[in-house]
């Protein structure tokens, strides 16, 4: 009987201790194992040790499901206090009155000036809505061994569009109608197509939208960029019309099926892990120029829900998650670009020449425009880019129709 009493008391104590703690819920985007490990094994215990009255409840949501889960969660009132998302999502959340401006709280973060220019990635209409956590960029990668085999200088990366075409032609190997090695692996569908084509657009001096959210990608620069992209596939036949699939978890360039490819920092981290031999053959470079150089870069940041119940606790968690130490841990786990200037001196950056290349490439970075109807606009653009790339629509007509459809969204 005495034993039962003590057990009962212990259970009561545990229950009340649990209830007496405030819980801050955080949704991380992505399910990379390294990130999950570092957050669960190091960051959460450290936060709860320093804040005994607080629980940090973290969930990891795959990027593909993030918008859906956030939409349903926030609409149903069960969304997180803090969540991570890409910078292009900010306008939509602000438009729907879901996230709060953070300007008056930025000063409470650890050394906020350390974020430098990356803090502007969280800006929308003059207010800060997100604190950057990690950056990702698309650079061009090529295989040194394939360049050598084709009689090209492996130390000289293609510098212009003309050189890119020549290098791709020289490295292409065909087996009948199929590619043994594609000279270049250009994305032919989805978001990747939009982001890589936009690099060519910016390299040609164009841009996606003007400051009043009007689509301007159907300019002469845009049409020329798309024509060049389509010609690489259909005229020069150096890239597959159907795209190249990964081989297991290896990208085509790592699997030896493409000589040149566009890759982001997470791709490179995966190649290093799963195909260390191919990694040593891959050289990273800033994409070639027509008028200028350009690489697509984007920052993901933490945003705070307007429905957060205990703002003080939420801000403590935000401050912890964006501290120097946390930013280093998260970016080290992801192999991504840290938004804090001090973190670029961290050991994991110093010892990773590929990552340093991505940090160098920030100089030529462009991002997706922060407009409220971005997701719909992007999908329309992708739909017409695909038509052009598949050869069922003329590039000029495709871009004009995409612009006309997007104009109706305004």
């Amino acid at each position: 009987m005495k034993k039962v009493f003590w057990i009962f008391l212990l259970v009561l104590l545990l229950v009340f201790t649990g209830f007496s703690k405030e819980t801050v819920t955080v949704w991380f985007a992505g399910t990379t194992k390294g990130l999950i490990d570092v957050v669960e094994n190091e960051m959460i215990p450290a936060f709860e040790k320093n804040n005994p009255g607080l629980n940090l409840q973290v969930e990891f949501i795959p990027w593909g499901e993030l918008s859906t889960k956030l939409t349903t969660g926030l609409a149903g009132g069960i969304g997180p206090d803090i969540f991570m998302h890409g910078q292009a999502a900010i306008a939509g959340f602000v438009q729907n009155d879901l996230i709060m401006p953070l300007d008056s709280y930025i000063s409470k973060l650890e050394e906020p000036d350390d974020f430098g220019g990356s803090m502007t990635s969280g800006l929308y209409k003059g207010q800060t809505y997100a604190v950057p956590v990690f950056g990702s960029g698309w650079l061009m990668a090529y295989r040194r061994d394939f360049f050598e085999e084709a009689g090209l200088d492996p130390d000289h990366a293609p510098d212009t569009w003309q050189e890119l075409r020549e290098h791709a032609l020289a490295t292409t190997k065909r087996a009948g109608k199929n590619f043994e090695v594609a000279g270049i692996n250009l994305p032919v569908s989805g978001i990747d197509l939009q982001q890589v084509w936009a690099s060519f657009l910016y390299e040609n001096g164009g841009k996606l939208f003007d400051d009043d959210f009007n689509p301007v990608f159907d300019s002469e620069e845009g049409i020329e960029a798309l024509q060049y992209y389509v010609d690489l596939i259909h005229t020069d036949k150096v890239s597959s019309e159907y795209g190249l699939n990964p081989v297991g978890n290896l990208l085509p360039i790592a699997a030896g099926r493409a000589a040149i490819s566009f890759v982001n920092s997470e791709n490179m981290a995966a190649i290093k892990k799963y195909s260390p031999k191919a990694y040593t053959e891959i050289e990273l470079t800033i994409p070639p120029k027509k008028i200028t150089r350009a690489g697509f870069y984007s920052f993901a940041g933490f945003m705070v829900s307007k429905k957060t119940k205990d703002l003080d606790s939420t801000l403590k968690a935000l401050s912890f998650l964006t501290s120097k130490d946390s930013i280093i841990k998260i970016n080290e786990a992801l192999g991504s670009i840290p938004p804090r200037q001090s973190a670029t001196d961290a050991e994991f950056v110093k010892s990773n020449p590929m990552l340093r290349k991505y940090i160098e490439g920030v100089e030529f970075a462009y991002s997706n425009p922060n407009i409220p109807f971005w997701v719909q606009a992007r999908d329309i653009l992708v739909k017409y880019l695909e038509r052009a790339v598949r050869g069922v629509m003329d590039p000029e007509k495709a871009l004009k129709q995409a612009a006309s459809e997007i104009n109706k969204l305004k």
Partner: protein
Amino acid sequence: MGVKKRNTMKRRIAITAFVFIAPVIIYNIIFRISPIFISLYLSLTEYSGFKSPTFIGFSNYLRIFSDTDFWGAVLRTLQFSLEVVPLNIILSLLMAILVNKTIRGIKVFRAIYYLPVITPMVAASMIWLWLYDPQIGAFNSILNFFNLPTTYFLQDTSTALHSIAGMRIWRGVGWNMLIYLAGLQGISQNYYEAASIDGAGKTRCFFSITLPLLRPVHLYVLVVGMIQTLQTFTEVYVMTNGGPLESTTTVGLLVYRLAFDYMDMGYASAMSFILGIIIMLLSIISFTWRHTKEAVV
């Protein structure tokens, strides 16, 4: 037993019965019937999911009439259903006849044929993604072995929808086989014996006894198959996400995109209702066809 006592007992039985079925009724009211009415209301509103819905009458329905994306998706979904359902019926009937034999180890075969049904749709889709892969997929390995060119099953607009239909047939055939098996085992052997005495062969027996007596099963399989295929979403979402060039975008996927990617819940609800009406009409036609057939017989 007096009338009063009998009435009391009847009432008790009724109450007891109601208590037993109450959980099911409550479940259906909350999770099946209420959402229909809520969705009907939402279809008459502009609703993002975050702010209160604004009543806009039939504007969403009028918008649908001129929406080429929607009607394209309807035609594609109907094509998908027309490919999957008849082939599924034929294959499952043939398989049911095969496993309706009393030979050794037949239960193992039945279990093997049924396995795809219990495979989660996402897992099945992932497996077929690999099978269809142009570089490392099993189907292309076979084609290449016979010196046939690589086929881009899911990347080519002319083959993508058929390829998903193939996967769907593989997954659904086991379930329908089971239904047909139950139907076959419900047919009395007397009919076959009488027919064989009259000199009827196996083919004649199949067309004159088996097929007509399985008519209720055909109807069930047809209607359920249509309802399921017209709502196709998961396999398309996983395997092609509607591409290439929208060639596999079904109504289910379009509704999902509108509701959760573009937060246009009102319009998505209206689309769902139109799809519901199409499914209802097709089901009514199927039932009417059965009754007409029976009247003729």
